[in-house]
Every structure is written in C-alpha cells, then in structure tokens.
C-alpha cells in the first residue's frame, strides 16, 4: 500500500531473525519510567494502558461469570448465600463485561494503536484528550469496582425502573455514576477517532483506500458520539428520581417506567454495534490476509458497516416487545430490526466469498476469525428470531436471549478481539506468540464456548427464565453442561494470557511484516518507532492488494 511494495508471501512461517531496527527507537524503548507511561500522549502507549486495564476487567467479569455458572449447577441456591448475592453477581458481571470490557476492547486497544498507523499519521488528532479518556475510564472503572466491593448493585445491567429508582436498596447511584463517567471516556475516544480519520489521513489515503478496520471504527465512533449522551442523561434522570424522590419514571409519581426503557435502549441497542462493528473491522483485515485475496466487495463492506451503524439506531424497541409498548411500535421496530440482517448478511457472505478460491492459511488469527463468522452468524440469526415478534414473546428474558448475546459478544466480539490481538501482537510487542499454543487455545475456546452457550438456547426455548437464582429441577442437565463448558472456556482464556506474557521474554522477535499483510502498519518496524513514520507515507494503491492481477477495480 505504501510506496514500497510488499510482496505477498505465502510462506506463513514468521521470520525468526530479529528486526534490524535498534531497540532504542521503538515506542516501548524510548523511555522506561512509570511516569513516562502514565503521562504519555503516544497513542500506542495509551493503547497498551487500555489493554492492561480491560484485561483486568475481563478477568474480574470472568470470575463473576464462573461464580454464576457454579451457582447454577444445582437448582437450589447453595453456593451464594442468597438471591440478593446472585443478583448482584450477574448485574456486576454484565456491567463490567459490557461497559468496562467489551465497549472499550477493540476500539480503545487495537483502534488506538492502529488507526494512526493505518492511515499514515503520527498520532490521533487530540493526543492529550486521548490520555484523558484513559484516565476517565480508569476513574470510572475504579469507582465502580470500589462500589462493587463495598456492597454492589443488584438491578441488572439494564437498570430498569422503578426497581432501580425506588426499590433496590443497593448502591444504584454510585454504580450509575461509574457508568456515567466511563461514558465520557467512550464519547471522547469516538470523537478523537472521527476527527483523526477525517483530517489526519496521509496523502493518497482516500476514503476508497481506507482500510475497513478504520471504516469500522469510524462508524463505531459515530454511534458512540450520538448514542452515549442519551445514556448519560438517562442515568442522570434515574439518579434524580432516586435521590430526590421526584417523579420521572415511577408510576406512583406519575411517571412511565417504559420511557426509561426507551431511553436506555436508544443507547444500548446501538451500543451492541459499538461492540461488534470493530470486530468486523478486525475480521476485514485478518480474512483477506490469510486468504491471500483482496476483500470481496470493498465498497459494499464499507457501506454495510455504515448502514448497520445507522439502522442500529432505529431498532431499539425490539427489547420491549412484551413490555407494554404499543403493538404498532412493536411492528415498526420488528421490521427495522430484521432489516439490520441485510447489511450483516452482506458482511458474512462477503467474507465467505473472500475466502472462496483463496488460499486459506490456518494461523491462529484466522482460526479466531473463522470462529467469529460461524458464531456471529448463529448469534445473528437467533437475533432475527428474537426480532420476530411472536417468537420473542415466548423467549424474551429467557436463556435464549442470554445465549443469543453471548454468541455475539463472546463468540463474536471477544473472539475477534483475541484474533486481532494475535494478528497484531508481533506489531505491538515486537515478539511472535507461540503458534502451537495459539491454535490449541483457539480450539479450546471454540469448543468450550459452544458447550457453554448452546445448551442455553435449549434452556431458553424450554422456558428457563434468565436472572434466576434457583430454577426447576428439570433444567438441571442443560445447566450442568453449560457449567462444564464454562470451565473449559475459562482454561481457554487463561492460556493466551499466560503465553502472551511469556512471549515478551521467550519468543523470537517479530519482523516488520510476519504475515505478508498489506497495510501501512506493516511497513514500519515491529514495534513501531515512537513517531510512527519517519516520513509521511504516500499511498498509491487500493487496500488489500494481495492479488495484483485481480485488483478490485470497482
């Protein structure tokens, strides 16, 4: 993509020779003090800071998930002392995983690290704002963790009124405040990305040449900027009602609880696309690279991403089909929700088509990518079932829904995040990861995942409601299967953690471009120098130019 051509190499074996660049140049080596990390404005270092923090949150959320699963092994409540404790557990699991892990995962880690590199810029448009976002994130995160340690919250991650505003006697306000704070971090990151992608592109990096990873982040950022403030104001209203006991949502005080749901989902449905669009971006880089083919239908891919982010704002009512919303709006939201399937379908089909007649190389990132496509499709199609009114009436708020969103968020987005992490790990750390263990872990995760969540589809279909501390004995077999799967899954998630850390010392150094991939980020050393590019690159080629004869001229 840059002036220097990269020969697409079919040899998947990484180059074991240490990169020729002197260590002192790269962004990790320029300075070592803790202070230099905490006060850095380098987008790469901020990416690393995010990576450390969200990993922490992921494991905290994971431990909570494990406790949930253990509790659900038996129909009676036994592990946790009361329903209250269980309720706090899944609430905090949901809040941590969504607001503190998945929403910032790909954008704040990989996006931060890669967007400037991919568009040929030295940094994001507002580096200080970027650092500020991280601090806001940490303040919100630590605050929320503190609240959870000192009593927690039990409203479900959805904070439905009037339970949350008038009945729950846990720390609703404090938790909401934590989420409120972290929302600003999300907004600022999105703002930064939007401006960066608009104004910082290297010469020749036209919109038609922008890597789809950047397109995906651009769309994500739009959602963040336009959606998050509504969540913020909703939370403030909730807080006001709870503190001052003045009526806004509580029917006793003349309010309408459904309004809260409207406002909450106006953000939270688009938020699911904040979580999944960046994964699309990652996939769009990995799949062409390991299929050795230009991505199929670039324009449609970019268009689909934008379409999803726009349509995503029009469908929130599908969470409320049985809530007492009018049937007519149920109908409107249902058809709009189904329409989201069309651009999503474009993506899935185009990935498949990209692989078709390519040379598919089964490296770890590609395994994750394939896992994503399969699991996302299942998750997405069950999403369509949920969007079909009559089906939703039966399975709403059952484990069917739980399975649906874990398929997309764990099987989809988390897998994509891991895939992306493997794909760019050589670039980020300057070291290769152990391929063997990588593949093993990917397989374990895939198997464990399906064992955990597939039974939950059945559970939900049989009528097992969610957020249940105790359940009817006939559901036990499937619950035990799910718990067994979850333990396999936990092992699967531990392995990469271990080998990523070990690889920093024991793995061979990574060359500039171990995968023979296209993209500006692969033209700089691994790890990249602090200022990214010695000279602003000039882009002269379309993206994903893996196949010189078959360049997509559309």
């Amino acid at each position, binding site marked *: 993509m840059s002036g220097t051509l990269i020969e697409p190499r079919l040899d998947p074996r990484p180059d074991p020779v240490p990169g020729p660049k002197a260590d002192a140049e790269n962004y990790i080596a320029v300075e070592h003090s803790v202070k230099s990390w905490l006060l850095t404005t380098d987008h790469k270092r901020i990416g690393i800071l995010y990576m450390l923090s969200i990993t922490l949150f992921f494991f905290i959320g994971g431990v909570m998930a494990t406790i949930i699963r253990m509790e659900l092994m038996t129909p009676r409540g036994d592990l946790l002392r009361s329903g209250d404790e269980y309720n706090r557990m899944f609430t905090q699991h949901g809040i941590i995983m969504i607001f503190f892990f998945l929403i910032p995962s790909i954008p704040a880690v990989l996006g931060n690290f890669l967007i400037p590199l991919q568009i040929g810029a030295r940094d994001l448009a507002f580096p200080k704002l970027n650092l500020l976002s991280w601090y806001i994130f940490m303040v919100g995160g630590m605050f929320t963790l503190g609240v959870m340690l000192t009593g927690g919250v039990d409203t479900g991650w959805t904070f439905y009124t009037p339970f949350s505003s008038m009945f729950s006697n846990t720390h609703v306000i404090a938790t909401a405040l934590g989420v409120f704070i972290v929302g600003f971090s999300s907004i600022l990151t999105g703002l930064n990305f939007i401006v960066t992608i608009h104004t910082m592109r290297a010469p020749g990096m036209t919109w038609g040449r922008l890597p789809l990873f950047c397109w995906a982040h651009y769309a994500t950022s739009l959602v963040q900027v336009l959606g998050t403030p509504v969540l913020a104001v909703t939370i403030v209203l909730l807080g006001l009602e709870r503190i001052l006991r003045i009526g806004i949502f509580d029917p*006793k005080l003349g309010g309408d609880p459904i309004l809260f749901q409207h406002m909450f989902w106006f953000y939270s449905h688009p938020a699911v696309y904040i979580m999944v669009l960046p994964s699309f971006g990652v996939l769009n880089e990995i799949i062409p690279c390991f299929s050795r083919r230009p991505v199929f239908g670039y324009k449609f891919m970019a268009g689909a991403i934008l379409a999803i982010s726009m349509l995503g704002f029009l469908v929130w009512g599908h969470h409320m089909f049985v809530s007492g919303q009018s049937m007519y709006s149920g109908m409107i939201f249902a058809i709009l929700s189904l329409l989201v399937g069309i651009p999503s379908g474009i993506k899935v089909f185009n990935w498949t088509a990209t692989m078709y007649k390519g040379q598919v190389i089964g490296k770890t990132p590609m395994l994750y990518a394939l896992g994503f496509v399969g699991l996302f499709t299942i998750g997405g199609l069950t999403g369509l079932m949920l969007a079909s009114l009559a089906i939703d009436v039966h399975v709403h708020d059952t484990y069917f829904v739980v399975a649906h969103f874990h398929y997309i968020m764990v099987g989809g987005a988390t897998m994509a995040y891991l895939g992306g992490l493997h794909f760019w790990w050589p670039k980020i750390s300057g070291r290769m990861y152990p391929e063997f263990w990588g593949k093993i872990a990917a397989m374990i995760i895939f198997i464990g995942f399906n064992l955990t969540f597939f039974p939950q589809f059945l559970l939900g279909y049989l009528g097992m409601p969610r957020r249940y501390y105790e359940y009817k004995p006939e559901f036990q077999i499937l619950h035990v299967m799910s718990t067994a799967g979850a333990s396999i899954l936990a092992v699967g998630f531990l392995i990469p953690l271990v080998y990523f850390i070990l690889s920093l010392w024991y793995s061979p150094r990574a060359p500039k471009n171990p995968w023979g991939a296209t993209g500006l980020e692969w033209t700089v050393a691994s790890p990249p120098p602090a200022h990214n590019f010695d000279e602003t690159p000039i882009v002269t080629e379309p993206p994903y130019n893996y196949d010189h004869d078959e360049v997509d001229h559309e």
Partner: protein
Amino acid sequence: GQVIYFGIKYRQGSKADRSGRKSTSHKLETFWIGGTFVLCVVMYVFSTAVYFQLYNPPANAAQVYVVGKQWMWYLQHPEGHRETNELHVPVGRPVKLKMTSQDVIHSFYVPAFRVKQDVLPGRYTSLWFRPTKVGKYHLFCTEYCGAEHSLMGGSIYVMEPADYEDWLSGKRAQGAGGTMASAGEQLYQQHHCAGCHGEQGQGGRGPSLVGLLNKDVPVTQKGSTAVSTVKADENYIRQSILEPQTQIVAGYDPIMPSYKDRMGEDDLLQIIAYIKTLSKGKEVKP
C-alpha cells in the same frame, strides 16, 4: 413449531456459510441483498400475524385479574375467589388476564402456553390463552424484580371441567376445616413470610417472630432515625404486615413488602393467630 423450524433451518444455514460455497460474481451483492430482504419480509409477516393473535382474546374468554407484587402472584377468578401463585382453570375455556403490579415491573410467563407479558405498576396489561391439555404448568416471573425474582412463580392447573367444579366447591367449603392457627401457618408459607422470617419464625433477613406478642420492640418511625420502643400487640403486628414501612424494627432494612392488598382481614386474623402460637414458646431449633 415455527420456532423449531427456524432454529433448525438457520443452524444448518450457518454451517453452509462456513464451508464457503459462494462464487465471486459481483452481481451476487444484489442477489444477497434481495434474498435476505425477501427472507426478512417473510419472517416478519408470519411472526407479526401470530403476534396479533397472541394478544387478541376471543370474545368468550373468562376474565381473571392478576396482581403481581414482590414476589408473588395474586389472582382473582371471575367467580370471585382468590388464589396466590396458583391458578386453576378448566380445560378448553379461553382465559384472559388483566394484570397490574403493585410495585415494580414483573412479567407473567407460562412457557407451556407460549405467552408472556410484562406486568406494570400503574397500568393494566393483558394476555390470553386457551388451555388445551390437562396438567400442571409452570408460571414464572420473567422480569427481574429483586431478591426473590427467581422464586416468584407458581403453577397453572388445567383441569377437566368436572374436576374444576369440584375444586371450586372445595374452595368454597374451605375455611370450615382446620384451626385458625393452622390456616395461618398455611398462609405464612403461602405468602413466603418464611423467606425472611424463617420456616418457623426464627428470623432471617427479617426479625424473629418467636415470642413477639406483647414484647417491647425497638422501632424507628417512618422518616426519622430516632429509635423508640413500642409494645407488639395485635394491632402492631397487623400494621407491620399491612404497612411495614411505617415502623421499622431497629437494625433491619425496610425490605418487607406491604401485604395491604393481598390479605383480607380474615387472613390477617389467621396469621396473627399463628404468630401467637409462636410466642407460646414453640421450641425452635437454631
């Protein structure tokens, strides 16, 4: 039926996707968009039609009123008698429910009948079903509503019309048999008092009820923090059950729900009679 059909169809579809059978023509994009659109519309039309049926009750349906509250269901038959967490209906007669909640949002869900509807405070929502097979079916609350959400369930008994008549007359006759206190004990279990006050009143999240009668209880009045002492006479107990929030026993959270609309005076008398037996020094193991 439809659900299973879609489920199987699409799971197979996803496998097909993974094997990558598509060709590379650019016209495909249009085809995909068109194809998925058609599928969408088909799903939509079917599901919406069913959705409307699901909520539009037939004219001859019998009306049952439902009140949800933390954490129980309270149902009243057209004939006037009430049930808690249980509903007996004759097979074949459509039933429509008119529902509301006293506190937070609940959701009335009978998986076997494929029906669900949130139950909102301050508003009526409705639902109907036609029981077609005799049996006992689960009733769940599926909108998260607090501590005992997972226990807020019960059963729907679908009976042969004859059995139903028997049950009805039995219900009418009831109240004659059994002492006040044993009826009270039943109520105590039925209303889940045991959830907080222990199986035998020994206490838990709520204070112990053993030996309560005529004891001096330290309480705080609503809206203040000062502790005062009141004598626990029958009136006090009655008020504690009907309006627990007015006087809170010191050291406890004001979590006890009000039973104002769920216990008649007769019920109250019975339950107080039962609590009295507790004070007579019924031995309770810790």
